[in-house]
């Protein structure tokens, strides 16, 4: 790792800023009528959630706002995580119910979905290196973590000036913990394997 790894982060960071800027430039400058015009595109910043201390992502809504698909880049500094870890993730969120208006807020009571994270670095393999292991020796990937989550979101829909802002919360666990729990219902429990993640969403 070291400088090579840092160089990698700098490049990815630069690419991400470029991409975010390109997306921001597409935001309409004027708002027409009373309804705030919302683009299906948005940016997210997330705290925790098994892809880093902080992750930034962009994505879009599909199917009349019932589905969101995001691409995240997460960073965990060594000072917090014991090791510096860089992660990319694809996340899909299903929103089965309509928003519930609560005063100036819109509440999405239930969101659920899956996230596939990829951890960068020499310590991790996507698929087992065949020059090192016989076929199916371990039978799992150390770089890929499938994460299942459920939660909700509060949109500041009628808060003046913050109409495009949403705050989401979720509890999630990775597949490797879930299978451990299913096989060890005595020692393990949901409280041992689920963790909280928090995020901010800004519609573009």
């Amino acid at each position, binding site marked *: 790792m070291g400088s090579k790894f840092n160089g990698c982060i700098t490049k990815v960071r630069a690419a991400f800023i470029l991409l975010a800027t390109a997306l921001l430039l597409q935001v309409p400058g004027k708002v027409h009528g009373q309804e705030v015009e919302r683009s299906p595109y948005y940016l997210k910043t997330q705290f925790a959630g098994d892809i880093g201390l902080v992750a930034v992502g962009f994505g879009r809504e599909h199917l009349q706002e019932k589905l969101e698909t995001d691409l995240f880049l997460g960073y965990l500094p060594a000072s917090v995580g*014991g090791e510096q870890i860089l992660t990319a993730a694809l996340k899909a969120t299903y929103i089965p119910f309509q928003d519930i208006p609560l005063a100036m807020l819109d509440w999405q009571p239930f969101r659920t979905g899956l996230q596939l994270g990829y951890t960068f670095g020499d310590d991790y393999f996507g698929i087992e290196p065949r020059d090192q292991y016989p076929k199916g020796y371990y039978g799992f990937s150390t770089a890929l973590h499938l994460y299942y989550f459920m939660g909700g979101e509060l949109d500041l829909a009628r808060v003046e000036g913050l109409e495009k802002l949403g705050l989401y919360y979720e509890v999630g666990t990775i597949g490797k913990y879930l299978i451990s729990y299913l096989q060890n219902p005595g020692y393990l429990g949901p409280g041992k394997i689920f963790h909280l993640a928090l995020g901010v969403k800004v519609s573009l």
Partner: protein
Amino acid sequence: MRKIYILLLFPVLLLTSCEEIFEYHPNQIRLRDSEKNLTQRNINRIQQQTPGDTLRLVVMGDTQRFYDDAEDFVKAVSAMEGVDFVVHQGDISDFGLAKEFRWVHDIMKRLPVPYLTVIGNHDMMSNGKDVYQQMYGDMNYAFVYGKVKFIFIDTNGREYRFNGKVPDVGWLQRQLTPTPEDTWEQAVIISHMSPFGSDYDGKLRLPFQQALEQSGRVQLSLHGHEHNWEFYQPEEGNVTYQITTSMNNRGFSYIKIWSDGFKIQRVHY
């Protein structure tokens, strides 16, 4: 519509029983102080005990993803009397994740006696080697208790792509060479992989066995990894190789060692 509100309760219920609210990454290494440097701490505890002429060990291993069985193991050993310490033969974790190591320690710390570990191949997945070193300590180490030297050595050759350096036979030979002030009369070898499996570096099979034989002080070499009981007593030699089964097979070895002999009992719980 009311039903929807109930959905909010799922995350809330999960969180109320949470031990740690946030997890930043599955490969994070965030340990409590009580989870660090466990090898040295447990050696210190062992050396405060008074060894008898006969030492009594419980040898187990391969706890990987078998937490409920490991809890039952701890209960079984807690009912035994006179055990000096417990040896974990490696594969503490399945995926090399810090959380798995911490779960296993959380179970093993309830043992009434100290426990020591040796690193297994699964413990080297991802950044597991770093987790092991922070939690337990060195991958090769030795200590003397009574008149026995216990030598723990990393033999996971395949994880090093059979580079001819693991196990470190030179280090092993030095450990087996007594100095004038040494008080130990025999040595017991403990490693995850035995020299007989296909995951052991074949180039080092004979050098390893020769190091044990030529020292003239080893009667017992203890291993795990196979998830099965095995017993080797090569004809030309004095060393017995004992492989202990895994946690999910609900077995462990109860071993008594004295100056010129030993007895191995296979226990099922």
